[in-house]
């Protein structure tokens, strides 16, 4: 019985992220449009896109290999699993201990690995551009992310997200400079990883500036749907990651009543909305960067992560 309910919660979680992801994307788009005084597409537009794509047949380049066709599913699966391991509305999920924060980062890294490979598979110039830029950004974003993880893990003495969230939800941690830096860094990383402005513009196909779009240029039909969905899930993942680490108080504990779960669920949606709104505002307020200015931007996250880790010792010794 216990196991069943736990399993149920886990399943709900997985389906939830899957369901909520396009919604978040749509929501952000909508808000951006509004801020630009456009009406913009309806919030559920992403669902429509994905469904339409699923219905279409796929056109695969002549010399595309099996990598090209397998990659979308791998990307989707890894991203999904990663997202499923981030506590959204409840901690201590059934399988949460099977992978910690480092593993989640690594899962996203493998998604990126295959995406980059897929970009190079057809052997077009644009695929190469996209992949090489993607790995460049990643080579800065990943270490930054790990250093941020250190900052939090050194406080929580664990890299297990549920544990971190539980600890942070009790005010025992208190306010720390380094955690602030971690938050800032995490936001930057999230922007970079999800290819949002100023790092990349998901809404453009202007060849020389695009990164993510350049890699998926050859994709169509259900493959493209998978990738779009994965992208949406990834955005959701980061948002809920920020949510569960820095606004953990609404999370339901492992053995809390169903009501708590329900409350957590509602509040979770609230969190998504708030953070999505902030993201939209940020994106409209800022301009796209040149590719080779990016290192300064993402490198900033790296610095913040390192600084946060080091300041941790200072603040501890106080």
């Amino acid at each position, binding site marked *: 019985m216990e196991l069943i309910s736990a399993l149920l919660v886990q399943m709900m979680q997985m389906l939830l992220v899957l369901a909520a992801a396009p919604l978040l994307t749509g929501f952000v788009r909508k808000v951006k449009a509004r801020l630009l005084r456009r009406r913009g597409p309806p919030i559920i537009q992403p669902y429509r896109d994905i469904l339409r794509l699923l219905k279409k047949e796929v056109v695969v380049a002549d010399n595309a290999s099996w990598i090209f066709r397998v990659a979308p599913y791998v990307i989707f699966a890894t991203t999904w699993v990663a997202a499923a391991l981030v506590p959204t509305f409840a901690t201590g999920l059934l399988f949460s*201990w099977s992978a910690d924060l480092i593993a989640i980062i690594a899962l996203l890294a493998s998604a990126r690995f295959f995406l980059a490979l897929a970009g190079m598979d057809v052997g077009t110039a644009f695929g190469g551009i996209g992949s090489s830029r993607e790995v460049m950004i990643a080579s800065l974003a990943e270490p930054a992310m790990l250093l941020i993880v250190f900052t939090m893990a050194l406080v929580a003495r664990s890299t297990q997200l549920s544990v971190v969230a539980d600890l942070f939800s009790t005010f025992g941690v208190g306010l720390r400079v380094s955690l602030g830096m971690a938050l800032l860094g995490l936001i930057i990383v999230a922007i970079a990883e999800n290819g949002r402005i100023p790092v990349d513009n998901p809404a453009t196909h202007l060849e020389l500036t695009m990164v993510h779009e350049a890699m998926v240029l050859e994709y169509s039909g259900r493959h493209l749907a998978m990738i779009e969905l994965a992208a949406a899930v990834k955005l959701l993942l980061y948002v809920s990651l920020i949510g569960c680490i820095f606004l953990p108080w609404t999370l339901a504990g492992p053995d809390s009543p169903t009501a708590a779960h329900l409350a957590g669920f509602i509040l979770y949606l609230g969190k998504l909305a708030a953070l999505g709104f902030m993201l939209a505002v940020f994106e409209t307020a800022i301009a796209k960067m040149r590719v080779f200015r990016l290192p300064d931007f993402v490198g900033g996250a790296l610095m913040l992560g390192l600084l946060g880790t080091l300041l941790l*010792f200072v603040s501890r010794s106080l």
Partner: protein
Amino acid sequence: MTSVAFLMLCAAALLGAAALAIACARTHAATSMVYGTTLAITVTAALVSIAVLVGLAAPAGLVLPIGLPWTGAHFRIDALSAFFLAVINVGGAAASLYALGYGEHEDEPHRVLPFFPAFLAGMNLVVLANDAFSYLLSWEFMSLASWALVIAHHHDPENRRAGFVYLIMAGIGTLALLLGFGLLAGADGNYTFEAIRAGTRTPLTAAIVLVLVLIGAGSKAGLVPLHAWLPLAHPAAPSHVSALMSGVMTKVAVYGFVRIVFDLAGPLPWWSGALVLAVGGLSAVLGVLQALMQDDTKRLLAYSTIENIGIVFIGLGLALAFRTNAMEAAAALAMTAALLHVLNHSLFKSLLFFGAGAVLVATGERNMDRLGGLIHRMPVTSFLFLVGCTAISALPPLNGFVSEWLTFQAILLSPDLSQWALKIMVPAIGGLLALAAALAGATFVKMFGIAFLGRPRSNEAATAGEVDRFSLAAMVLLALLCLITGIVPGFFIDAVAPITRQFTGGALPLQASLPWLTIMPAATSESSYNGLLVFLFIAISAMLAVWAIHRFASHAIRRGPAWDCGFPDPSPLTQYSGSSFAQPIRRVFLARTSATHEEVAMPPPGDTRPARFSLAVSDPVWTWLYLPFAGAIEFASLQLNHLQFLTIRRYLSLVFFSLVSLLLVLAIWS
């Protein structure tokens, strides 16, 4: 018969195989015969050593009346040597299996066959040796055999140069170790390890020994800045030997480091750990950066070896730091991470070198920019190579991730260290490690993407064919091992527990007892990772997605020309090349260093010549360390050389002056 005696027999048998190879190197059946023999021997040796490791066979010692007189040759097998013997012999077995096919393509087999078994024997003996003399003898014998293999293709002057540099560095290493042992053994020459262990020495002495060993073992393992020979020598050898050198011989060096520093040297000052950490971190990042810049497949792999050795030494440095602070559990964790990475790297690096060798056989090319599209021509090799790339890029659920995860977990225990320098340093090293991991990912995206994906850039690549069964079998074996180590790491962690118990006083909690084969670094920490579940999750959800889509949505497929924003260019040269792929990272990380030199020859307007872009990537260590030194020696020899061309009268005056000066000394002294 004791385990050690049996393993000595295996080594002797390998030497016998070498003699056999000399005898019949030029006959037709030689190749299959020799490699078959080595395969059989290494497999048995691997089984025995694994048996010792898991405790089925007892550790034992053996003294032979050879070697250094009045000391004799001591050999011993304990958990540590058993572990490394397993690594060596598994790698050796894989290499032999691979060479059963690969070796057939050898032009001058008589330059490879005799030395291959000798090389294996040398590595086995190093790990078995239990006194300084036998250790150094086997060590240098190993270097010598591998040197002969490096210059097996001696017609290429590059290979001869590589062999020369390699031998010099090997000599430096051996002599550094020799000095270290001299310090350990003391004036009255107690060269047996037991005697050295029994001897007492100050932490400073031990630290000097550590530095000497860092030079000695580090030069063999390829630690920065002693790595310069490695990217020259490893690719020069035949591929199965490259795999052994990169995957296994560097591990023998690691063994030497662990044996001397953790076992023999005695108590060390706390900063020794910091030293090792610094060297390790440096090697990890510089190694992978250089790797990313390479366009030669095998050289890229060699540089990535430097990176992985750096990771191993980060683990060892952590273990040292924790041990000097009497944190047994943490030290055990760090050491476990290092040892596990030793195993993993030996697996996937061999796999990758085999792949590179297969490509070499199929296309005769080592330069990526003349490859491409091989995934169509050699599907199996490409798949296995992809497995290797995923593993070495530390991506779950494969094995590379496990050891790096453990290393990170060890780093997270650093706040309990008592020295501030270490407290501050270790997370920074962690950052370097993360950077190295990310760059490794980039490196192998580049390697696989350029060499195997895309469109063929040369005729050879376009007409390549799949390689023989033996090569594939060897690669399949290693790929499977990579997967197994990745999804059930618990067993391997438990296997190395006796080693950590012996050298750090602690050990990880018994992993096999944890539910669902999870691994947990320390009883206290609540972090955990479960490779099996992650693997299953990914598999299931991918299946689910595929099933759902093919069930409910369309599964129609149409082949068409590449879209490429509407401007597809037929020429495969418009694809990204290796150097262009690396260009963004080059600009980010190396733009201000002297390591890279780009130049663009842009023709004037109206000129129809194409613009030419040329790029030179140099290893800074060469320009800043090696060349000046060589120059100094050159200069000195040039100056002294004038003494060869004096007249007899001048020589007489030399005699005269030495006589007078000696008499003067006498007049002044006594």
